[in-house]
């Protein structure tokens, strides 16, 4: 092999503490290095041109770039060598910036270490082989999991562009959290006016198949060729027949059912349609409250239903769908604020969550848009909002900021004033985070126009006093104790990962963080991709997000899906495991450990052998470390390559 070495100065980023020229000079003594130089900015246009020129002049077939982290610029240099006709995988990087120049000032040690890293990269590169992606057919359909605003956006964008979309929603209606909101910040426009038409579009779009009251049961296959099993939950209503007329909900004698859509603010009937604009507009029986199920006697709805849609004996059904890509848009759930003993842990009826308050504000909500204290139905005059409930609090394991609470609290303070002009709102906050477009102006309006009293500090205790609640906290700006006698306390509960998000992540073979949020491919460069090819993220399932961000990400995910499925055939990353059939004894250990089911057993001339499904393999190398005879090797991280690196470091 003819190897060229390029040692970057990165301006003074490297050169200040590493003698790049000396490193380049030392590299000339390494085996198979026929060209070595130092350059000012290797990643710059002239730097890349220099690589290309050198490849051509010196007939190089491999390049080592000693510069920054490969996580930064490996793709850059791969493209560069490819332009010079060298296989893109014939590049290795020595990270002499993040791992050398930036972490120590001892130039002698740094230069020596940088030289070592280059030697190691050369030894590894010598064993690199050109790799070529393989192609395979793809199903041009996408599964969207979750019918909140992010999922809706993805589904519509994809459907509009001509892809078939399968949407699965756990609840009986799509719309997600946004459907529950009254108004949205910072424009204070009506939530359902924005979302409603989109929901209708989903229902009516010929390219979209909607499964509501359904969950993803299992996912197999791989990018371009997923097999999805969808479990349709029991609704006791035949949706083929249900017209959503609502007669049953009127006549249902069980009227104290828990109202999930209204967050428990006001009851609903055991058979119900969550809200008038529900999509699909179909009734569902809540078995927990249905008299037919609790007492065995009733059957009113069945009698009344004009289409005979009620079916108490309904069983779960499984549906199969083939898709080429999957978008997870499962959103978030609200933090269960009862973890806070100082806020009463749920004992005081007039301490409610922000989303419950939102339902109260909603004209179509349980109170008809009137703000009423849950305890006595009175209109509150003093409303205290407490922020960061379940956010930025390491003590309850929620150290992150939920991002949108500052804004919706400001909105709710404004709306409170709108609804009850003689009311006074207090907002206890830690910091106001309003970095979006027109956001800070919005919070200022809440304070300045609507007179909300913002108190910077944590609330230490809420306790009842007569029919009031005393909210005691500290004003850290004034360094004084504050006590407010409130009629109603609204807690700005933070966002947490949706219920059982981790279960779904495991089905999709994607990672999730400590809090259950799905992990993106790269926080900056691959924000809607996951590390499983063909699975994308939209909305708050990746981390707390407000509506604009969720919609933006929904569209971004759609763009990625459309890009992926723009062709009938896909290319797979060739840096994957390969089986040397001669060495494989078919013991199956690799098959057992593969996290992606990317290895299967095959019969090769009567012998058991392992076979890698190239499109599925993600290149983790677990199989490689498992195979005792080394019959399965991860391309570009082969045993021999790692051993060459070890050997290079242990020499002398």
């Amino acid at each position, binding site marked *: 092999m003819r190897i060229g070495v390029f040692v970057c100065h990165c301006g003074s980023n490297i050169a200040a503490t590493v003698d790049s020229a000396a490193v380049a000079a030392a590299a000339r*003594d390494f*085996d198979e290095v026929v060209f070595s130089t130092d350059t000012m900015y290797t990643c710059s246009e002239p730097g890349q041109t220099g690589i290309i020129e050198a490849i051509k002049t010196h007939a190089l077939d491999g390049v080592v770039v000693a510069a920054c*982290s*490969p*996580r*930064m610029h490996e793709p850059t240099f791969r493209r560069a060598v490819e332009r010079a006709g060298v296989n893109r995988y014939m590049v290795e990087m020595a*990270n002499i*910036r*993040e*791992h*050398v120049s*930036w*972490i*120590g*000032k*001892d130039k*002698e*040690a*740094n230069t*020596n*270490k940088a030289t*070592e*890293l280059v030697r*190691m990269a050369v030894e590894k590169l010598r064993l690199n082989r050109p790799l070529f992606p393989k192609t395979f057919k793809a199903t041009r359909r996408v599964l969207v999991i979750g019918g909140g605003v992010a999922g809706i956006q993805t589904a519509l964008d994809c459907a509009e562009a001509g892809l078939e979309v399968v949407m699965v929603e756990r609840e009986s209606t799509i719309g997600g959290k946004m459907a529950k909101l009254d108004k949205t910040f910072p424009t204070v426009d009506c939530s359902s006016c924005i979302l409603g038409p989109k929901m209708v579009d989903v229902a009516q779009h010929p390219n979209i198949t909607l499964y509501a009251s359904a969950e993803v049961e299992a996912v197999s296959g791989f990018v371009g060729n997923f097999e999805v099993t969808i479990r349709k939950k029991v609704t006791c209503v035949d949706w083929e027949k249900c017209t959503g007329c609502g007669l049953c909900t009127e006549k249902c004698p069980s009227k104290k059912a828990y109202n999930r859509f209204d967050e428990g603010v006001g009851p609903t009937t055991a058979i119900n349609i969550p809200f008038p604009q529900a999509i699909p507009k179909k009734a569902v029986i809540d078995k927990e409250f249905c008299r037919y199920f609790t007492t065995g006697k009733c059957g009113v709805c069945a009698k009344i239903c004009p289409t005979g849609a009620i079916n108490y004996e309904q069983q779960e059904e499984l549906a199969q769908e083939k898709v080429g890509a999957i978008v997870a848009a499962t959103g978030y759930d609200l933090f269960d604020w009862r973890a806070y003993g100082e806020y009463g842990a749920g004992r005081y009826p007039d301490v409610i969550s922000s989303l419950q308050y939102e339902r109260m504000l909603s004209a179509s909500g349980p109170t008809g848009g009137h703000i009423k204290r849950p305890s006595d139905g009175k209109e509150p005059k003093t409303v205290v909002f407490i922020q960061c409930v379940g956010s930025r609090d390491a003590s309850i394991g929620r150290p992150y900021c939920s991002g949108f609470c500052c804004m919706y609290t400001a909105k709710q303070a404004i709306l409170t004033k709108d609804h009850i002009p003689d009311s006074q709102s207090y907002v206890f906050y830690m910091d106001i985070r309003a970095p979006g477009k027109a956001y800070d102006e919005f919070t200022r309006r809440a304070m300045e126009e609507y007179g909300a009293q913002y108190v910077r500090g944590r609330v230490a205790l809420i306790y009842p006093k007569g029919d009031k609640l005393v909210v005691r906290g500290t004003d850290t700006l004034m360094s004084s104790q504050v006590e407010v006698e409130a009629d109603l306390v609204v807690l700005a509960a933070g966002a947490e990962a949706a219920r059982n998000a981790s279960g779904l*992540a*495991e089905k999709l*073979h*994607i*990672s*999730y*963080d*400590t809090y259950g949020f799905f*992990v993106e491919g790269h*926080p900056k460069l691959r924000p809607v991709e996951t*590390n499983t090819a063909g699975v994308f993220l939209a909305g708050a399932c990746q981390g707390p997000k407000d509506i604009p961000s969720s919609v933006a990400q929904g569209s971004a995910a759609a763009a990625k899906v459309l890009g992926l499925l723009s062709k009938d055939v896909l290319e797979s990353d060739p840096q994957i495991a390969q089986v040397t059939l001669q060495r494989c004894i078919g013991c199956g250990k690799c098959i057992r*450990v593969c*996290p*992606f089911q990317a290895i299967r057993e095959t019969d090769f001339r009567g012998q058991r052998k392992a076979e890698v499904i190239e499109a599925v393999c*993600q*290149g*983790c*190398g*677990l199989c*490689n*470390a*498992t195979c005792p005879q080394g019959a399965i090797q*991860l391309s570009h*991280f082969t*045993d021999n390559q*790692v*051993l060459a*690196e*070890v*050997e290079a*470091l*242990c*020499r*002398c």
Partner: protein
Amino acid sequence: MSVLEGKERRIIGFLCNWCSYGGADTAGVGRFSQPTDLRIIRVPCSGRINPLFIIKALLSGADGVLVSGCHPRDCHYAEGNFYARRRLEMCKQLLPAVGIDPLRFEYTWVSASEGQRWQQVVTDFTAQIHQLPPALRFSESPDLELLRQCG
């Protein structure tokens, strides 16, 4: 010269690409100064690390080996580090069988955002290795002695 004699020890790190290598990058970006002894080998996942790499390194004259992967549950490949944890622990328990101080090998988890933690890990581990005597070496077969020389 692979290490600065009298100044550095030969320490090899195996880092998973997604978390710990990123964590080391983060530490660099943050200019968190670290001892210079460590040389990092990048692997896709801690699950890729065959414990024999570690043993091979230690038998070949490495004074210390440090493995770092994604925190459990945070594996880029979902479960690679779970397997790694068992294998690496097994490896650690085997080392004293051959007379290698188990303190020469540590494994830990550092995420891509934990630059400071990475600095701490490197600093601590390097100090730990400096407290041990240089690694024992086998008297090499004369046939291979040549290969030990630099070149």
